[in-house]
């Protein structure tokens, strides 16, 4: 099979240049435009014009995809960029035009505050809290600008360059009674802080703490519930218990040695997490990946999509009260993992994609295993469909529960199966085919109601489509190298080492320091298991990333929980949480 990349729709569809020019005309002369390697136009906006500009842009670009900041203070390559110590950026997406826009605001160190965007986009709430927590940037008029990822008692802002990265650079952790008491006290839920009243005319509300350790919250996640009897009046999700500092980690690992950390971001997605990262690095380095590597990557990514959806399916059924499905689905996960293990050597976190290709070639006999699996699995999915999704109790528990429509999905940044369950036909593999997906024949499963049941049905159908893609990979696996022949492809081929001193030095540097990526910025997004996952990398021309921004789908998904669970019972909330399909590492990173 020949994989031909479609020209990437870099800016707006149609005539990008003209559209951008029209935008600049409309916004005024004080807007500076910066081009980045991903082809997304970056508009530098003065902070006093931010609200006005964003308010105007929302009509055309209704999806606030990402919002974070960069500490610019020690960056050497800032050619022509506006002066500033911190940059806050907003990544906007227009689904209608299939185009992106990045708005940037430069802030000086002493006065790093800017207007909050929560009045324009409710989804900005958590993102701004995160930027405040990580960088100390203040957002004026934010309703509750508290820390979100670090503990309430944390000192400093971790993604500032002066904050230590390693735990071993800081004082060793000691569990004292004072710490225990102080932290338990800081976790006490105070309804007034969140604008909640303790009672209504004829009722006193009960406040229930669910988590951070609870069997049905899928990890370390806490929700404080305001209850009227058993009915959820309001909810405040509390995250950050799973913050592993993955973004800070990017600033001290080489481009190559960061790959294992990406696996652990969405820890059910395995090598699929590697994909947006290595693709971003490849784009910055100008590496063209060979066809075989592309198809191998797609095949492995789809395997992990199935593994993740199977786990979702089993736990979803379990949370609703069916005890057996999870055992069937985990047994099939094991069958799948034996293929993953035979090909990559690992199970959950193979870290197997490389800059320029994959870790090694497919082993002899891989095709038999894969064929056995794709022959075997469709009947199993039908069986599970009958067992779980056709079950009357499960239907009654989930249909009409936790519903939202397409407009709300866009407003809150909901992507992936959760977006397609509302009927919005947007799959990045179709709309912006990356890594060779345009060569594959598959359908995008859609549903209409956007409730818990539809979110499940969409994922079950996605398992079937992934099997279809894997079969096409199997039947059309191209021959050829599994890694690009490029000086930046890592690790370099061993055969070229022992020729003379030059080749030895080359090899040594490429292995120890890894590639040096030219100064540039690039973001790549993919359709990950749970939604759109993007890596926005900033290189300062070194062997490590200057800033690694990981936009994960689960973060905004959790933010929406209060909106879709008000008025339902606690048991429905459990169904809603299960239907979102998140892992906390994908939320807190």
């Amino acid at each position, binding site marked *: 099979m020949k994989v031909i990349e479609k020209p990437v729709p870099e800016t707006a569809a149609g005539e990008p240049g003209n559209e951008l020019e029209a935008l600049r005309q409309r916004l005024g002369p004080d807007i500076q435009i910066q081009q980045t390697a991903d082809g997304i136009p970056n508009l530098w906006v003065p902070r006093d014009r931010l609200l006005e500009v964003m308010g105007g842009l929302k009509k055309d670009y209704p999806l606030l995809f990402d919002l974070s900041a960069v500490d610019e203070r020690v960056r050497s390559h800032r050619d022509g960029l506006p002066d500033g110590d911190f940059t806050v950026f907003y990544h906007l997406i227009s689904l209608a035009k299939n185009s992106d826009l990045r708005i940037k605001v430069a802030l000086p160190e002493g006065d790093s505050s800017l207007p909050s965007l929560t009045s324009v986009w409710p989804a900005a709430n958590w993102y701004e809290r995160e930027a405040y927590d990580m960088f100390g940037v203040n957002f004026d008029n934010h309703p509750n600008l508290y820390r979100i990822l670090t503990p309430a008692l944390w000192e400093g802002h971790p993604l500032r360059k002066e904050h230590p990265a390693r*735990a071993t650079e800081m004082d060793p952790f000691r569990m004292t009674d004072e710490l*225990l008491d102080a932290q338990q006290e800081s976790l006490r839920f105070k309804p007034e802080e969140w604008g909640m009243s303790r009672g209504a005319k004829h009722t006193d509300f009960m406040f229930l703490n669910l988590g951070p350790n609870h069997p049905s919250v899928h990890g*370390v996640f806490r929700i404080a519930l305001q209850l009227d009897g058993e009915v959820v009046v309001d909810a405040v999700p509390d995250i950050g218990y799973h913050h592993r*500092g993955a973004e800070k980690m990017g600033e001290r690992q080489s481009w190559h040695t960061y790959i294992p950390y990406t696996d652990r971001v969405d820890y059910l997605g395995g090598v699929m997490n590697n994909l947006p990262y290595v693709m971003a690095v490849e784009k910055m380095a100008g590496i063209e990946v060979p066809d075989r590597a592309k198809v191998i990557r797609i095949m492995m990514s789809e395997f992990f999509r199935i593994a993740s959806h199977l786990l979702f399916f089993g736990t979803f059924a379990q949370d609703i009260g069916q005890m057996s499905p999870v055992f069937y689905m985990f047994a099939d996960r094991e069958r799948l993992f034996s293929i993953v293990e035979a090909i990559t050597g690992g199970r959950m976190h193979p870290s197997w994609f490389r800059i320029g290709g994959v870790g090694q070639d497919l082993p002899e*006999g891989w095709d038999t*295993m894969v064929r*056995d699996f794709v022959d075997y699995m469709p009947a199993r999915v039908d069986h599970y469909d009958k067992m779980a999704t056709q079950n009357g109790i499960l239907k009654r528990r989930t249909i009409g529960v936790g519903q939202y429509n397409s407009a709300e999905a866009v407003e809150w940044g909901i992507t992936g199966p959760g977006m397609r369950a509302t009927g919005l036909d947007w799959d990045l593999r179709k709309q912006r085919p990356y890594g060779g997906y345009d060569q594959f024949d598959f359908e995008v499963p859609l549903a209409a109601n956007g409730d818990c049941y539809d979110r499940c049905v969409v994922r079950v159908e996605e398992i079937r489509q992934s099997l279809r893609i894997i079969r096409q990979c199997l039947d059309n696996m191209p021959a050829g190298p599994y890694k690009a022949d490029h000086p930046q492809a890592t690790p370099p081929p061993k055969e070229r080492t022992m020729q003379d001193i030059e080749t030895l030095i080359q090899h040594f540097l490429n292995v120890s320091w890894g590639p040096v990526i030219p100064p540039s910025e690039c973001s790549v997004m993919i359709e990950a298991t749970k939604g759109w996952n993007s890596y926005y990398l900033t290189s300062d021309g070194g062997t490590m990333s200057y800033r690694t921004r990981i936009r994960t789908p689960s973060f905004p998904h959790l933010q929406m929980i209060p909106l879709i669970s008000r008025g339902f019972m606690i048991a429905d909330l459990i169904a809603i949480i299960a239907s979102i399909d998140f892992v906390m590492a994908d939320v807190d990173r």
Partner: protein
Amino acid sequence: MEWRLVKAEADAPMASADEVYQEQVAKGFLTAKLDDLVAWGRAHSLWPFNFGLSCCYVEMATALTSRHDMSRFGAEVIRATPRQADLIVIAGTVFRKMAPVVQHLYDQLLEPKWVISMGSCANSGGMFDIYSVVQGVDKFLPVDVYVPGCPPRPEALMQGLTLLQEAIKARPRPYSWMVGEDGEVSKYQPSPRDDRTPVRMRVTELEEPSHVGDAPLSKELLRQKSPSPATPGRDGTGKRR
């Protein structure tokens, strides 16, 4: 156990009183030290706490499901509350924000209680030497068994569990703080890794990972497709190591 078949007839001879007595005597006596008996009971009725922190928990859950089925070792009664459990598997990364919660949960476990540290993060912080991660759960909890891996395979966790059971039998804990000394008598125990080093050092040639080998999947599925007499595997000698 003795048993016999008796016709369901009204006048069939009943077992004589003496026979019944002898049978009951044979069944009812067991001579053992109380300590050993209690330790044996504790070792094989561990009630793990349903507790997970991150990726490792998925492998822990896998160990409980069909293919691995940890209940074979007598530790499947997963409890949702620490007050009904006596084993906590620290499955995943111990975060600074989560550590006081972990401590709180540990304090609520029933005595005597045991801790398995599962995976590199819980063992030492692992690859996450980062500001938000405690560098090993043993910074604040006493750990009985460390299971290496990132994440450890379900088989590794099951091995950790059997090691813990051996340790419970070998090093009994007091019945309560009111009877005897508190805490266990700690004995030096060599690590299983050191035990195996001589065996491992004898391996001189490692196989190239260029073919799928005895992949369990293909064998299993092929068996399902065409039932054929099972061929004895490489380890089909029936001998334990």
